[in-house]
């Protein structure tokens, strides 16, 4: 039963060839994910924190993964989250065999799957797993990870400033962002009869029953906290619960049509709803067929989360994993991935690389946000395990399941 796939996942898979792709799945990552990394980290980084490689803190652990021939790499990621040619070129360049598995559909679900081995201190047979910030937090907190040997990942210096020192891993000892994404508002200005600018606009009674929200409180509650003029980075559980109360209130009024997974994309594309709490990458992909759709980064700000590459405890091929991390932090490779997945790229230089081949995508503010936009992006709130559970349970009451 725990293995039972959600209908949304299966459908997304069926629709995969339409390339609703990564974002759809990703949205689920975001849906379940927490990003601690956004603005707080951004500010911290602006405050003069150097690249992680040089940063020494009390928690820095000595790690040395000697260079060995690359034979095998077990890489678990979300579906449609990479341009597969990257895997091939990696194999060609470094040798060995990459077993790339698209097995992560949901942070919680994946954790449930490997939980027992992790808790017993065993290897889980994977060298890299990609998990959203809040789940990365959990793995770091419980010591389920192998630290990254930075000597093998010199390209980590290409990590964008804002993500270099997240609360959960201030020196990026254990994690390296794979892709980031924004949670904000996707809408159809033709239907709403004009542009929106604020998060609170979605509660205009004119749009009653025409709004969807993500069922995951990491996203929806964070957005409501921002709507309230607060910052998510220092939000407490009380702020989160108040935000969920507000969602409940609007839902009881009938303002919110549904709480969704990635399936809001269908409703939005078909015009059943006019406004969705949405992921940036989803909307970019929807725009291909529905050019009138827009993604709004509201005045109050938006949420920025990341999915992170992590090496589980007792990973069998740490050097290979680090080599892969280093490889995808080559701007050229990062550009290739960005062009395919349409998420926010954490790699400096990828934009310039992409400008050479695909200038239009390189200009996209939602894939390569400007500094001005980045300043408006906020991480998920930082919560203790108990509080996080309270949040999930409160939201479950609102969504009725």
């Amino acid at each position, binding site marked *: 039963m725990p293995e039972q796939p959600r*209908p949304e996942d299966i459908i997304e898979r069926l629709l995969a060839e339409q390339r609703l792709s990564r974002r759809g799945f990703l949205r689920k990552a975001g849906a379940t994910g927490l990003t601690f990394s956004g603005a707080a980290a951004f500010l911290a980084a602006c405050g003069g924190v150097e690249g992680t490689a040089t940063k020494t803190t009390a928690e820095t652990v000595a790690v040395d993964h000697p260079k060995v021939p690359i034979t095998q790499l077990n890489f678990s990621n979300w579906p449609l989250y990479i341009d597969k040619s990257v895997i091939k070129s990696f194999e060609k360049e470094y040798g060995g065999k990459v077993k790339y598995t698209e097995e992560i559909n949901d942070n919680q679900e994946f954790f449930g799957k490997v939980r027992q081995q992790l808790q017993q201190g065993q290897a889980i047979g994977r060298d890299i797993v990609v998990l959203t910030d809040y789940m990365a937090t959990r793995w770091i907190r419980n010591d389920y990870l192998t630290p990254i040997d930075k000597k093998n990942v010199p390209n980590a210096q290409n990590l964008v400033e804002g993500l270099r020192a997240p609360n959960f891993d201030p020196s990026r000892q254990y994690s390296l962002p794979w892709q980031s994404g924004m949670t904000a508002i996707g809408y159809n200005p033709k239907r709403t009869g004009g542009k929106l600018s604020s998060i609170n606009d979605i509660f205009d009674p004119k749009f009653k029953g025409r709004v969807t929200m993500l069922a995951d409180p990491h996203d929806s509650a964070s957005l409501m906290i921002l709507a309230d003029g607060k910052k998510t980075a220092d939000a407490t559980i009380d702020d989160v619960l108040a935000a969920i109360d507000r969602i409940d209130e609007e839902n009881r009024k009938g303002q919110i049509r549904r709480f969704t997974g990635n399936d809001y994309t269908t409703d939005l594309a078909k015009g059943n709803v006019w406004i969705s709490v949405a992921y940036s990458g989803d909307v970019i992909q929807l725009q291909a067929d529905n050019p009138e759709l827009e993604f709004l980064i509201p005045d109050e700000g938006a949420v920025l989360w990341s999915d992170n590459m992590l090496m589980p405890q007792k990973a069998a091929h740490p050097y290979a994993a680090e080599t892969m991390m280093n490889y995808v932090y080559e701007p050229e490779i990062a550009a290739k991935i960005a062009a395919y997945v349409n998420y926010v790229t954490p790699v400096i230089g990828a934009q310039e690389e992409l400008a050479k081949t695909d200038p239009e995508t390189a200009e996209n503010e939602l894939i390569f946000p400007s500094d001005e936009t980045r300043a408006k992006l906020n991480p998920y709130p930082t919560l203790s395990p108990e509080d996080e559970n309270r949040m999930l349970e409160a939201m479950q009451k609102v969504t009725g399941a």
Partner: protein
Amino acid sequence: MARRALLTARRRRQLLPYAILVPGVAWLVVFFAIPVLNQVYVSLESGTIEQGYAFDWNWSSYGTALSDYQEQFLRSLFYAGTATVLALVIAFPLVYFVAFRGGRYKTVLLALIVLPLFMNFLMRTVAWQTILQDDGFVADTMRSLGILEEDGRLLATRTAVIAGLTYNFLPFMALPIYAALEGVDRRLIEAATDLYATRWQAFRRITVPLAMPGIVAGSLLTFIPALGDYVNASLLGSSRETMIGNVIQSKFLVLTDYPTAAALSFLLMLFIVVLVAIYIRVLGRRSLFEAAAA
């Protein structure tokens, strides 16, 4: 020598029935008994996903399941019940027509009823999202006929969920009834009319009672899966239409609260067993066994 051969042959014959039972029993043990026991075990654990769960006879999950999710239990009962009745009302005339008037098109007509089953369950449900969409033909027509308010909708409503359930399980209602009707001895109906029964009387007193095993079987095959279904509610409904299946799904996968999820599933099973027992008691056990034979 010959005697020994005879003996072993006899023993073999005695053992044969048990040998035949082995695959079935093994199947039941591996895919039913063990999972159910495991589920009960999990439902009595306590802990958290991060700390791990440990077995300690913790019955409180059952309390939570019963006190917090009555609404979804009752709603599931209502939706599944309504869908079953609707499926019966739709399926009966349909297969009656096929069985009695189908003639040489019988096979084709029957195939048409079964055909949707060849398509994936999820895809069929997603198709209903398109059929019922706000600007779609169905909703527009209903609006112009005044059945639906000007700003009314079908998707994300109770109507859509029940319609989806009815549609998805219709073949399971239709086929057993068809089998029962096919088996009705036409001469009995003829005899009834010869004895001055009106067509209606003959239908009510001959055809329907003879079709009863099919109706009972069809109702169970529709009601039971509909009760536990979560796909229709999640794709065609909203937070106001969640069923017990949705709660179990989110307990397992979103909250990773395995004990409560297991307790809920176990209660659902128990609930179904009790309902079925009452149903069979009321309608008579005979019809169920006949249905099984049919």
